[in-house]
């Protein structure tokens, strides 16, 4: 608390507060009540896209990392190529490839059009979710490769000497230590993933960024929606950082360090 009471910090805070007051009074916010429900919906959609793609992406990343760290070459090589391709091309390109490419391919097959999945495949969000998931899996596969390698060999050898079956070694010894070692990295990567979500607005998924763009097109107000949008993303980033700090604090490793 004393950190905040230094004279220059108080001065900066006053300038900040004056800026906020100026923004609130001098800029146009009359569009806000009309679009508030739409914005809430957009924020909700951003959040579930983020949560679902990180969870699914992580489930893919663990086998990808394991294959690269300890797998035989016929598993390691494809995993490595997948990670390189995902990390080497822009996400926007991947999203467009999946949406426009698959989207133009699927209608050519009658059996897909007649299947029960067609109403879902006609929408944009499955492609957005797929692209975000694959992207997160690609980046985290690389992170998990290093994480699996960072676990001391002695731990695994001890577990094997105790006669633990292989899947139990993975679940009880290897994976928990690997994940714990890279938790700070994963937190940063999840913020990056959040920063990637507005790209799905380009394929007509109506999340918070798309709502702000619509406000801009409807009312010709440029800065206010963008500033509000920046604020929303700042809050989301803060939430992610806090969440990961909470998870880190629960582990035994940080207790020893702190």
């Amino acid at each position: 608390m004393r950190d905040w009471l230094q004279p220059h910090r108080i001065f900066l805070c006053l300038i900040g507060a004056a800026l906020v007051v100026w923004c609130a009074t001098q800029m146009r916010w009359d569009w806000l009540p009309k679009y508030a429900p739409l914005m809430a919906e957009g924020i909700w959609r951003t959040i579930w896209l983020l949560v679902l793609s990180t969870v699914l992406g992580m489930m893919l990343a663990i086998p990808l990392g394991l294959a690269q760290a300890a797998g035989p070459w016929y598993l390691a090589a494809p995993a490595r190529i997948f990670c390189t391709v995902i990390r080497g091309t822009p996400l926007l390109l991947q999203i467009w490839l999946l949406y426009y490419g698959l989207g133009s391919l699927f209608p050519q097959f009658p059996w897909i059009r007649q299947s029960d999945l067609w109403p879902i495949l006609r929408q944009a969000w499955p492609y957005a979710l797929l692209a975000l998931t694959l992207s997160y899996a690609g980046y985290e596969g690389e992170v998990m490769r290093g994480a699996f390698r960072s676990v001391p060999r002695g731990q695994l050898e001890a577990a094997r000497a105790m006669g633990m079956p292989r899947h139990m070694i993975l679940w009880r010894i290897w994976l928990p230590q690997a994940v714990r070692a890279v938790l700070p990295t994963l937190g940063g990567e999840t913020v990056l993933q959040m920063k990637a979500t507005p790209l799905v607005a380009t394929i007509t998924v109506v999340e918070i960024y798309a709502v702000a763009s619509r406000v801009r097109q409807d009312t010709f107000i440029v800065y206010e929606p963008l500033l509000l949008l920046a604020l929303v993303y700042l809050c989301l980033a803060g939430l992610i950082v806090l969440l990961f700090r909470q998870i880190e604090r629960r582990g035994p490793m940080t207790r020893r360090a702190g």
Partner: protein
Amino acid sequence: METLDLLALSPPGWGATLLAGLWNSLLIAVGAFSMGLVLGGLGAWGKIHGGPITRDLLAMYTTIVRAVPELILILILYFGVTDLVNQILIAFGHERIQISGVAAGITVLGVVQGAYATEVLRGALLAVPQGQVEAAKAMGMPPLLMARRIIFPAMLGLAMPGLANLWLIATKDTALLAVVGFSELTFATRQAAATTKAFFTFFLAAGVIYLIITLLSGWAFARIEAWARRGEPRNAGG
């Protein structure tokens, strides 16, 4: 073979359009990366040696830029900078101008890169062994000579992995300018794909181009890092 004809360089094919887009992408990536290095160098210096106000302002800069999506920063800066320049021009009695896409793209991505570069260079600067700096000072080396002969060479190897990452981010972030309608590689690809309906051909071709850039730069940065670390004691693993 028919679909590959679409990639031909002469007019029925779209190869020339893609290459023009690639040129724009590379131009912006190089410009933004250089600007990021300059901003990052200043930022790192300010964060370590600056006064309390400088440090707080720099902390705000890096925090905000790293928490808000690039796409939104691009839009804010794109509209904002264009507006600001035009208002200044009008105030001085000139006419409005249209800011070129390349200049706007370099500025916007440069500001974003600057925030990340600040952190990378600050880490490298702090990791330079303090004893070497003190020894140089004790020998009466002037600050600029010390920066050139002692700090910079020691920093380079430490900063290289982070800088390589930043360069890859710069090349991929140029794709974001497609959203504001600037004709770089991704935008040109989409145009070609939408016109010819050959989505897979063009998006895969662009993907291969980006991948080649990534792999080539990865190789080049590894060479530079090996050169920058020459003479350093090797770790047990290396």
